């Protein structure tokens, strides 16, 4: 049976409890659910951040996340997977991204969630523009994001 998989790119916020409930309702085979929620911070490197605006590549964002979701399902015995990434203007304290992984046991759920976030940060076509008191500027990519994704690649 294919793993229940939900991928959404949306402007609106998401309800973490509702997403977990949707994944686990009526299931007796799930013993572990891990969720990662990425949240907009109010400062970056000591700079005050007023808001982030996320631009994305419609069509490719869903496709790229889908490719990594498929890989996660091949690498770990997952029983369900939900990935939601927001776009548009997001203020400090608001949610940006949600990854929910479900499995019979915790190890697969923890590892798949970390794998998915590492690949999402390095490869999903989203770009953050940061607003602050001085104006706004595109956020530069962190080299350690590529390194975090690379550690999952087997030699």
């Amino acid at each position, binding site marked *: 049976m294919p793993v229940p998989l939900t991928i959404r790119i949306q402007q609106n916020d998401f309800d973490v409890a509702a997403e977990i409930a949707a994944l686990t309702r009526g299931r007796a085979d799930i013993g572990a659910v891990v969720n990662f929620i*990425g949240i907009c911070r109010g400062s970056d490197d000591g700079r005050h951040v007023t808001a982030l605006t*996320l*631009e*994305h*590549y419609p*069509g*490719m964002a869903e*496709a*790229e996340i889908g490719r990594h979701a498929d890989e996660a399902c091949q690498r770990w015995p997952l029983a369900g997977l939900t990935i939601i*990434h927001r776009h548009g203007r997001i203020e400090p304290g608001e949610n*940006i*991204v949600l990854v929910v992984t479900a499995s019979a046991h915790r190890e697969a759920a923890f590892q798949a969630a970390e794998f998915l*976030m590492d690949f*999402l*940060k*390095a*490869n*999903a*076509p*989203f*770009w*953050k*523009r940061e607003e602050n008191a001085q104006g706004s500027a*595109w*956020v*530069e*990519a962190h080299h350690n*994001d590529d390194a975090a994704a690379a550690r999952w690649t087997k030699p």
Partner: protein
Amino acid sequence: MKIVYFAWVRERIGKAEETLDPPSAVRTVGDLIGWLAERGEEYAYAFAAPRSIRAAIDRTHVKPETAIAGAREIAFFPPMTGG
């Protein structure tokens, strides 16, 4: 072929997409970057640091040496900063 731009690549070029027909000598993604960079000041500015440019063909990441033959949509954008 349709060429689309995102984030600061889009802002520097001043457009989100366009349809272009590069000459046959332009075989790879890297060739296309070089050809685009000569189309005007705004393109030269956008592609001034090719190592900071990422590309996708038909919504899949590709490398500079990837051939562009048969591509319907080629995208250029900075390194990703989502998540």
